[in-house]
């Protein structure tokens, strides 16, 4: 099956997604994601921002096909996701380069197991600044280089969707900022849709066309915010007024969320962000299509 690599490919639709973990009885179950709706356009870069334990990794796992939803479904270009597929590449939080393969073998892994040409591998290694480490084992790489290698491994498959689960969270602050800009420039050379999970507000803004803020327990979309920054974005984007303004709004929304846990327990609905045109859309979507029988 060839993943459609036309610019129209890579539309992700998440409908009424619910994922619970744990036992048979109600009180043993943990609701990781609750009745979540989200649509992502082809070629769009969406970041999912939320506190730890809000179910954002579960959301990503469902799109990747590693985890089966309890209810609802995920479709890509209209086809339901039933399992992992090379058209949906994943970058993991801890680097998951195979320690027993060299950097070159890791980057060539996708094309070679699928019986495709690996001609592009040297160019990719060059592009990601890994040429001189091509024959090294992952244990010889620094954290930043390892994540670049993992990104190269994903790009070698030419996926229509890139899924990233806090890929830079283990890096030091300087390396992290450099990697964010490198990711943006690598992504711009593709026409892939990107879904990127993070708990770092600046990272969420810098990378995204839209930031999805998730609430914890149960995990669902609280608000969706457009990022009105010009592309290409570099390090200086962080200091623009639009950026800091957005950061202030998102921080307020998150902290409001953290503080509202008591309120939620008392049965009150979490407060919504007052300004910003998009959050209304997000909430409406959640309300209108979520009626289908979640307990």
């Amino acid at each position, binding site marked *: 099956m060839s993943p459609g690599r036309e610019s129209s490919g890579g539309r992700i639709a998440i409908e009424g997604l619910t994922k619970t973990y744990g036992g048979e009885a109600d009180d043993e179950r943990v609701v990781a994601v609750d009745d979540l709706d989200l649509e992502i356009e082809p070629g769009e870069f969406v970041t999912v921002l939320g506190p730890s334990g809000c179910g954002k990794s579960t959301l990503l796992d469902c799109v*990747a*096909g*590693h985890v089966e939803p309890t209810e609802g479904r995920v479709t890509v270009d209209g086809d339901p996701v039933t*399992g*992992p*597929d*090379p058209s*949906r*590449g*994943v970058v*993991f939080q*801890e680097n*998951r380069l*195979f*320690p*027993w*393969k060299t950097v070159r073998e890791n980057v060539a*892994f*996708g094309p070679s*197991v*699928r019986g495709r040409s690996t001609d592009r591998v040297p160019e990719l290694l060059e592009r990601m600044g890994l040429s001189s480490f091509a024959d090294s*084992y*992952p*244990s010889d790489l620094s954290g930043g280089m390892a994540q670049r290698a993992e990104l190269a*491994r*994903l790009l070698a*498959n030419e996926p229509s969707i890139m899924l990233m689960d806090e890929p830079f969270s283990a890096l030091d602050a300087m390396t992290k900022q450099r990697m964010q800009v490198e990711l943006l420039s690598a992504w711009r050379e593709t026409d892939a849709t990107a879904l990127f999970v993070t708990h770092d507000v600046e990272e969420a803004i810098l990378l995204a066309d839209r930031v999805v803020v998730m609430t914890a327990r149960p995990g669902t979309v609280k608000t969706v915010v457009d990022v009105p920054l010009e592309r290409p974005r570099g390090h200086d984007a962080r200091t623009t007024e639009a950026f800091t303004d957005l950061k202030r709004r998102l921080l307020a929304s998150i902290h409001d969320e953290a503080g509202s846990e008591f309120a939620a327990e008392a049965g009150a609905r979490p407060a919504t962000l007052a300004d910003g045109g998009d959050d209304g859309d997000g909430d409406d979507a959640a309300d209108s299509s979520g009626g289908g029988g979640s307990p």
Partner: protein
Amino acid sequence: MSGAATVARVRRSAATGATTFARRLEAVPRSARRAVSVLAVFAIWWALVRFGVAGFAFFVSPVETAAAVAAHLTGEPVADGGTIYLHAAYTTARVLAGVAVAVTVAIPLGLVIGTQRRWERFLLPALEFLRPIPPIAWVPLVLVIFPTVRLGVVFVVFLGAFFPVLVNTVNGVRSVDDEYRRAAASLGAGDREVLRHVVLPSALPAIFTGVTIGVGLGWVTVIAAEMITGEYGLGHVVFQAYRLIDVESVVVGMIAVGFLGAASTALLSAAVERAAPWLEGAPTGVTR
């Protein structure tokens, strides 16, 4: 009260004494400390023989042993016949054959048991039933069942090596990190590629551990089997020499067994380093 205080003081002074001794010891060069250790073995051995402690009165000294080793290495027959090389060749061949069969059977079996739940249910209980029987306890039954003693000895070696390889392979496969499987699946790998590129290499350190233990037990069982069955080989040499009260050959046989065992372990770890270069000095990915 005063008694407790005295005890405390004695303890403290003992501790200080130990600490000063440790300090002085650290000042001595490493090679000297190691040399002392090895020399002590020979010195104690020499003294035990020299002063005739217990049965050592009739035992050979290190010097006599060195002469005997030299004589046997240059072709003098051991115990009731045959050169040490002949017996060593018999023993080595049996270890190689038994371990080779064990590895060929146990690794695929371990991969199946570790990855396929439905096969594990049917295979593992029978194997777990047989596992506690020490391989050497099989010797009498093997003598009854097997058409030739030679084949029987190889079977006992096989049993000795089989279970360590199997158990370590199963454990290695089970401890494969799921995220590697997911990563491979996301990159387009099917079940067979996941087995080949993820499960097998990831379980390799554990498998190597199993093979190393298996080879060690192979040497233990082969010596026991040769002693009991009276077949050719170093085990037979040692036991036959004992019957003939040929103390020199007893010790030469022991040294030969020890040397070959140590050599096979060293060869194996060199082979592992070549086969799995990524394990060299890598703190990640390798547990246990």
